[in-house]
């Protein structure tokens, strides 16, 4: 079983990202479970969303405490320590940042990848220039960084599930797939 946790702030689309990821993996023949951190969401507050993936039906139903991989939609959240809490050694830390992976210190136990999802999403006019919605973009990068899911499946699910600007979201994911920087 693979457990993935997505960290972001309310309004960045972490919950939708976990759902699209789950749908994409499902379309490739795996069992999935996707859920938000069970709480009260406010715009700007730290939020988390989860995706479980397995070849067999998934029995476990509690929260994810020791994820295999994480995505970080707002790099400022890294300093709080909540993102890497419980993350398994060797797990992927995919960060939305204009910096390269070596910029981030203290993550030696993990495989760090970065993608400038904010700029890519802004260029494709997803959200506002000051607060771009980066959820679909970072999924493109995750496809490359993890190899767990194909970019084609991600793009197909974005087309099915994103109600507004599906083409721009898909283009943005594709660009992130091509531009993600792997520090491993």
């Amino acid at each position, binding site marked *: 079983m693979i457990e993935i946790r997505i960290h972001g702030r309310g309004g960045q689309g972490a919950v939708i990202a976990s*759902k699209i990821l*789950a749908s994409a993996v*499902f379309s490739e023949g795996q*069992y*999935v*479970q*996707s*859920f*938000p951190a*069970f709480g*009260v969401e406010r715009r700007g507050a730290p939020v988390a969303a989860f995706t479980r993936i397995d070849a067999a039906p*998934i*029995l*476990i*139903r*509690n*929260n994810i*405490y020791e994820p295999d991989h994480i995505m970080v939609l707002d790099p400022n959240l890294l300093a709080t320590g909540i993102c890497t809490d419980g993350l398994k050694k060797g797990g992927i830390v995919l960060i939305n940042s204009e910096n390269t992976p070596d910029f981030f210190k203290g993550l030696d136990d993990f495989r760090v990848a970065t993608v400038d999802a904010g700029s890519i999403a802004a260029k494709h006019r997803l959200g506002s220039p000051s607060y771009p919605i980066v959820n679909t973009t970072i999924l493109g990068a995750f496809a490359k960084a993890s190899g767990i899911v194909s970019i084609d499946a991600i793009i197909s699910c974005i087309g099915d599930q994103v109600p507004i600007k599906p083409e721009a979201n898909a283009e943005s994911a594709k660009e992130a797939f091509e531009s993600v920087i792997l520090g491993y």
Partner: protein
Amino acid sequence: MGNHAVSWGVLRSRAQVIAAYPITPQTQIVEELSEMCADGDLDATFIKVESEHSAMACCIGAAQAGARTFTATSAQGLALMHELLHWASGARLPIVMTDVNRAMAPGWSIWADQLDSLAQRDTGWMQMYCESNQEVFDLTVCSYKIAEQLDLPIMVVYDAFLLSHTSEVVDITDQGPIDDFLPPRQAELKLDPGKPYAFGSLVMPEYYYEMRYKLQEAMERAGGVIDSVLEEWAERFGRKYGQVEGYKLDDADIVLVTSGTTTSTTKYMVNQYRERGEKVGILKMRTLRPFPVERVRKELAGRKRVLVIDKNMSPGLGGVWAQELRAATAHIPDVPPIQCYIAGLGGRDIRPETVRDVIEHGKTQESLEKEYHWIQLKN
């Protein structure tokens, strides 16, 4: 997510009148249903109301007129309906309702806990608890068939967030086969200006007693009806359910009794015990009412330990499922003491380790030393 599985179940069941008031974590059910109505996918009257009490009142009126009805609620909303829950069953109306289990406030909570629905035990409603979103969809459809055969209302119950907001794979059966399974409701007696009857009038003592007898008589038939409807569902669609279900139960010395999503996490832990050769199994409870007394007696006799995980607390006595099981098995030889473990109140996560602690503690309990045990209680 589980909430959408309900909406699709109600759509496929061709409900005709939907009345509801929003409350977390149920709201998405009726949000989606209102869209289905607005888009013309579901030919139903959607009634916006000012409270849950009114929502149930609308369902009662519509069901009395012969319609297939639906509402959904949680926690305080269900409590506000309480008076009318008795009316729905006493008037013998086959209303289907979803209750997304949410802890009762205060402390103000939106998270899962079963006390809201269990506290409605004596209202004359049937109740079925779900473990997965597939069960939520399937049992929503089955509930209409069960309720309409018995003229009794039914509640489909599942955990807040653990199912309501969790997305997972659900097979949404096509409309045609469901139409074959569930024909339109045919009410024998209904509000009809062309053929007038009076409903809800004063009942003198010489008749009330027999009305209650008839209600209970329907509940006694309910077990058989539930079994036959679920069997028909399994034959048609291949997904099999029961009033109780065993998991690695046949040879189990230690039996964990669970309901709702706690069952899934318990299965995960039971698999680990089985790998070590320990005979641990699960009796999963589906129906609270009618209570499957005979099945429970049969399944629990001859075991070494019976450990009930109760995600609820009836203050002053203990877990509700454990109390029901003790009452059902009292004086039945060979049923071991029924140990009650209170867990998961107000959304406290029930983890595999929680289940492990229950099993390990239960192994040490030969007799009934305590009515209930707290598990992983913070000081």
